[in-house]
């Protein structure tokens, strides 16, 4: 079993803690500006996602796995359509738990 390269759950707030490291997050697509997705994180931060061709349109949620190149943008390596009925509130709670109190279960 290889646990050397985990992908932590992040939201808009915790994204800045992992700049340069692979992360995973779920965001809601707001619009597509010439291939750059403008999205909203589960805690209300506006982010940009590059390198996610074919991503669905608003108001779909997508899970993005990639490397943040700043505290507000992610260079996507892959994405998964989580649909329109995804509940962002539990995911936001999970991000907090997984990055703080129960970090040792995830990283």
């Amino acid at each position, binding site marked *: *079993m290889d646990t050397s390269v985990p992908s932590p*759950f992040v939201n808009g707030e915790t994204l800045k803690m992992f700049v340069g490291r692979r992360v995973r997050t779920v965001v809601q697509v707001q619009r597509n500006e010439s291939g750059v997705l403008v999205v909203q994180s589960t805690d209300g931060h506006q982010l940009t996602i590059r390198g996610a061709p074919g991503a669905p349109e608003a108001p779909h*949620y997508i*899970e993005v796995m990639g490397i943040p190149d700043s505290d507000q943008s992610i260079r996507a390596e*892959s994405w*998964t359509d*989580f*649909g329109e*009925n*995804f*509940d962002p*509130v*539990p*995911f936001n*709670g*999970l991000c*907090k*738990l*997984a990055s703080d109190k*129960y970090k040792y*279960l*995830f990283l």
Partner: protein
Amino acid sequence: MPSQRPGPAAAAAHDYAAATPSPSKPRGNPRYSGCVPATVRHIARSLAAADAGGDPAFSIDGVKTSNVRVLGKVEAVVSAETDVSFTLDDGTGKIPLVRWAGVYVRVHVDITGFQTNQQGFARSIRPITNFNEVVLHFIECIHVHIENTRPKMQETFPPAVQTNAYTQVPYTGGVTEHQVHFAPQVNQGQLLPAARTNASTYAPFTGGVREHQVHFAPQVNQGQFHPTVQTNRSTYGPFSGGSSAYSGTGGQQHDLQSKVLKVLQAPDIMTVINLLADSGFVCWTIDDFHVKCAVFSKEFLSALSNNCVG
């Protein structure tokens, strides 16, 4: 010009098509509508017959279907970057299959092996269709970890929810019933009902409506203690009332008093129950000591997530 006879494959396909004439309208077999069990040989011949007849739609025995069920042994698994492909041999033929191309799946795994030879045996593999289940899974990981690592009774007297995590049965949808028992406490003082979940029926939820039976029994006590939730640990020993409980601790009255103080600082379980009832997450049933929980997935997820926080 000599007549051109069809090759063996085409002839076989033609014969097979003749044996299974295409109806003027598609016939449906309600028993197997949607997913037809078939052998690999039968599928291969049906495909050949469809090609020979120029029929773009796949049908078996005249039944138009795109879903078949095969059963056989997995061979030659090839894992690529975007999918996993393998060959299934059912004894009548081998069919190449592709699966799990970037798909989230839920897998029940039996962990085997030792040291360098650790591996998992996948007992059940199911694709995820409701992605709230992804979040639920990780929250459940935290929740079960919390329950399994609660301090033992001798060390502290925490308000904990008893869960038998070893018998958790993951659930995949529909209605699930949970038994939640509030175990009686016979103590000095008035302990409010204790809450204990009979987690032998605990079933993580992934969709639909879940029903919980919550039963709690009155406390026969002297004094005023906040409600406690019984921890399901083999070493747990509830108070048994009077000085006998204290004598049973071997004279460790100071430790017991500190435990009691912690209990007094514990959240009022009845307050929580009433809050849940007012919010519509639970409803009273046969008497004041039985409640039933009926929540939808989003509410349950939020409640569970909030329960893990702090």
